[in-house]
């Protein structure tokens, strides 16, 4: 069985398991939807009170919000194995069993669990996106849709990269650290507003350190057909999401280094 077919098998098993408890899955999804949707209230209230900021209206800001949340929800849904890697695999010694199997550890972790409840965030973000489209004129033609899909793919890669890094850290710290939430949830929080409203140092962190701007801010500018108020050239905007894939690749380099120094905690 090749890697892709095996991954498909993992996903199917995970989905079947959740389908055994349809009510619980639906309730968890609804709960996740409500808990994450309140952030748009905050965005709305701020724009309602202060008017436009950095040249953006609420409708345009909502496009940033929607795309970032869509990216994160997909990555969050697909990377559960990496998220709980420290607690459930390293600390318990269960990772030894993973290593014994003649398959890449990363593949097994990626297929560990596909959590449907995380689609709750996707759901609310999709509603916001539809709503935003009615507020601002977005021409959803083939090229904008392509940019949006490409940006989401880059964003999913970026957030997965963060979760892989979080897992990698567990090779040293043994447990999963809540501190990485700073990058995941904190990243979503920061990137759901347009980048140019922030102070310069923070913009640089979000572009060159953790390239959230490359998967959210720049491609959304291209979707809204707006030039970058900060002066990035137009041709760069749709190319930027590639940074997400680069980040994921670097994360896997770190992951390999971590794997090489892994010593079991099991007895």
């Amino acid at each position, binding site marked *: 069985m090749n890697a892709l077919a095996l991954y498909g098998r993992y996903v199917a098993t995970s989905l079947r398991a959740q389908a055994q408890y349809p009510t619980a899955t639906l309730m968890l999804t609804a709960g996740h939807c409500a808990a994450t949707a309140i952030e748009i209230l905050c965005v709305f209230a701020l724009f309602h009170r202060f008017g436009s*900021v950095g040249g953006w209206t609420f409708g345009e800001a909502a496009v940033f919000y929607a795309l970032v949340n869509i990216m994160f929800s997909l990555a969050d849904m697909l990377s559960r194995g990496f998220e709980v890697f420290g607690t459930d695999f390293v600390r318990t010694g269960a990772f030894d069993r993973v290593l014994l199997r003649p398959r890449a550890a990363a593949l097994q972790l990626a297929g560990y669990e596909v959590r449907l409840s995380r689609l709750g965030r996707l759901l609310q973000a999709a509603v916001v996106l539809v709503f935003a489209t009615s507020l601002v004129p977005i021409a959803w033609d083939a090229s904008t849709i392509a940019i949006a899909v490409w940006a989401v793919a880059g964003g999913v890669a970026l957030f997965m990269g963060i979760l892989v890094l979080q897992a990698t850290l567990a090779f040293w710290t043994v447990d999963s650290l809540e501190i990485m939430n700073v990058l995941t949830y904190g990243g979503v*929080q920061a990137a759901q507003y347009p980048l140019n*409203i922030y102070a310069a140092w923070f913009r640089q962190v979000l572009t060159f350190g953790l390239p959230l701007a490359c998967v959210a801010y720049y491609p959304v500018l291209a979707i809204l057909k707006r030039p970058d108020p900060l002066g990035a050239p137009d041709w760069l905007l749709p190319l930027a999401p590639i940074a997400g894939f680069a980040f994921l690749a670097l994360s896997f380099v770190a992951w390999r280094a971590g794997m090489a120094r892994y010593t079991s905690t099991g007895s």
Partner: protein
Amino acid sequence: MAAARPYLAAFRARCQLMLQYRAAALAGFATQLWWGAIRILVFAAFYGVNAAAAPISLADAVTYVWLGQALLALQPWIADPEIGLAVRTGGVGYDRLRPLDAYGYWYARSVGWMLARALPRAVLMVLAAGIVLPLVGLGDWAWRPPSGVTAALLFVPAFALMTMLGAAVLMLANIIVAASLNERGVNAVLTPLVIVFSGSLLPLDFYPDALRPFLHVQPLAGLVDIPFRIYFADLKGAAALQGLALQAGWTVVLIGLGRLAMERMMRRLEMQGG
């Protein structure tokens, strides 16, 4: 005093247990620090264009954010996980056998649970946002001391009442968990309600003006919005006293409701586990 002893013991035991997890507290603290920083960056951006539209000054908004981050664990976001566990495993049977007022016992434990999680983080937050930030020259972004002696004195009862009100809300959630055996459902409703209506997400005055009459009198305002505004003297004089009265009133009402609900629940409670 002797009558209060078992409740104090329950409170102290829970505090000591919670204080064992220092690494978790530190990691949580770093997360909150970053979280607060992002909120402040967003506020700064909006204040930068149109500060006149804001109901409070930027310095007060910054203080509001740090206070909120420091006292995050006082918010009744999730039902006490031990209560759900006790009901599922049948451990609640022991609670029924104690010669104590069941509501008072759970209430004291809940207060202990909340304060033990909140206070260490609050101390660290004072150090980081109140002392270190001004020392490194970021005084504009620091957590400021209360605006004057009166505000500080008024914040003492406001803080006590926000804790008591929080525990009263938490107790209602605990009772629903015990009756329905379903923690996740209760938390899924409770968390967003508390975050929005307490003023954790945004100070309540930032929401559209038309909503103010409602937002200012609903019970959850006493959890964050009222005590924090007393802290930086946005509510002063009669308005501050009115705020305290609202907190106290809702605390009494919710404790009364909780007692009624607990009595009904306990009568119909079926023991789980073996």
